[in-house]
């Protein structure tokens, strides 16, 4: 059995106004992968391809060891998928949906479903049309979680939720990972949510994967250096620095491959390093996207 839950190799898909450009992505089993990208970056297309809902034009897709889309039926027994644009049947109750899913999946965990009903504050006898947006998202997630899938694929699940609902959902997703064999792919443009629960992160922009690595490595490698540069001194182009913004005597350098010697290198060139700051995931994301776009346009 492969130790990868998801493997995308050279996967491309062309639409009239958008193209997914031969992306490669590996998600080891037992990890939470956050897929971050701006709107229209290709997150949903990527997820639909790996669910077999959209057929790739080229490349190889394997999910839980199954080739997609050919083996999507076998693969989907072990995948729980919920997306922001997925709706349950308005006129039916949550209990009806639970019975429907239970009738299909032998792995349905009734006791866990009851626990989730309480934790999420939803009632089985409620009709879907009577639920708030947050409750609908929780209902959809309950239906996915209670079947105990090996892979959870969540496309923008926290979009439009209030902070409390977001917290409840993220807490539950973290709890799900107590089973070490379980994997989550979580797409969002809310970097805070992804930062909170993910242990690996992939940035996607304009149909290209621009970076993918462990969250901690991102946070270690990406730093912001505040520099004081006397007049007449040129700031050197150092390896690991992707951008410098200078305003008079002050400059800010962004490093994507920070090493402890980097401040010394600036000091040697005549600049004074005022501070080396950590960057939030959101700042890393924005800097990464901007750098990637500059590279493409250059």
């Amino acid at each position, binding site marked *: 059995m492969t130790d990868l839950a998801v493997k995308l190799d050279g996967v491309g898909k062309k639409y009239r106004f958008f193209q997914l450009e031969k992306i490669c992505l590996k998600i080891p089993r037992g990890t939470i992968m956050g897929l971050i990208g701006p709107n229209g970056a290709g997150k949903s297309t990527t997820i639909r391809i790996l669910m077999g809902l959209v057929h790739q034009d080229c490349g190889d897709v394997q999910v839980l060891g199954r080739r997609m889309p050919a083996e999507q039926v076998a693969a989907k027994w072990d995948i729980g998928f919920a997306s922001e644009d997925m709706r349950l*049947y308005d006129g*039916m109750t949550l209990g009806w949906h639970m019975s429907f899913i239970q009738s299909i999946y032998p792995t349905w965990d009734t006791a866990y479903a009851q626990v989730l009903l309480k934790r999420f504050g939803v009632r089985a006898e409620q009709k879907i049309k009577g639920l708030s947006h947050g409750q609908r998202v929780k209902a959809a997630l309950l239906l996915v979680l209670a079947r105990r899938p090996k892979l959870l694929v969540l496309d923008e699940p926290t979009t439009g939720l209030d902070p409390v609902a977001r917290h409840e959902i993220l807490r539950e997703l973290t709890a799900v990972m107590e089973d070490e064999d379980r994997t989550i792919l979580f797409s969002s443009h809310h970097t805070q949510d992804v930062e909170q629960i993910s242990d690996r992160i992939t940035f996607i922009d304009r149909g290209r994967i621009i970076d993918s690595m462990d969250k901690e490595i991102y946070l270690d490698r990406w730093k912001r250096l505040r520099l004081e540069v006397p007049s007449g001194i040129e700031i050197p182009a150092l390896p690991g620095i992707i951008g410098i913004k200078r305003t008079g005597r002050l400059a800010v350098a962004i490093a994507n491959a920070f090493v402890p010697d980097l401040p010394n290198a600036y000091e040697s060139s005549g600049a004074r390093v005022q501070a080396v700051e950590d960057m939030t995931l959101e700042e890393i994301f924005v800097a990464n996207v901007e750098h990637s776009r500059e590279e493409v346009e250059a």
Partner: protein
Amino acid sequence: MKGTIIRHLILKDLRLHRQQIYITLAAGAVALGVCQWGSEPALVVGSVWFFISLIMVGTMLPIGGIVNERKKQNLAFVMSLPVSSVQYTIAKIISTFGMFLAPWLTLVGAAILVIETRHIIPRGAIPMLLILAFMPLVAFWVMTAAALIGETEGWGIAANVACSSSYGLIWYFMTRNSALTAGMTKPAPVWNSAVLTVLGVEFALAAVLLGLTLYVQSRKQDFV
């Protein structure tokens, strides 16, 4: 796996749309009841209601079960289940056609029974009844094909408009074709070549639409 996924999807659709079967049966029963009052106006009104109930169910099921499922974004939920696009299509065709066929067979059977037992109109009208009753069935397949293949509400509405506006014209020519109407006043049904040809064409159209739908759906690359 508990049973086949196709069976689960069919049962789901039955639970979601069974009200439409009950409404059609009730409307058709009322229409046949009106026909039995015996007067000519009652027969005309009852017959119109009868065919309207068949047309309505042939329209409501593809719109409610297929177009609305996509429009209301339920399709992503269904396709997240262990089902392929072909399995979905097969389940949708079986469930939708089954839900159409149940009231259609019941009402057409009841109408034949009324003609046979109540002698309100001659038994020779049975072939024309079948010819006219098969038209909502063909229209049902047009609507179903448009809903599944076209994927948008626009295609569903276009198919609905095309079918609805065709009924009057086609019925006008059918009921004025002497070869088809020749046996209507006879005491026994006359199954002449004209009647059998029209019924055959209606059957063939339905079969072609079914085949076309399955073929196109099986070749689709993007489903949601």
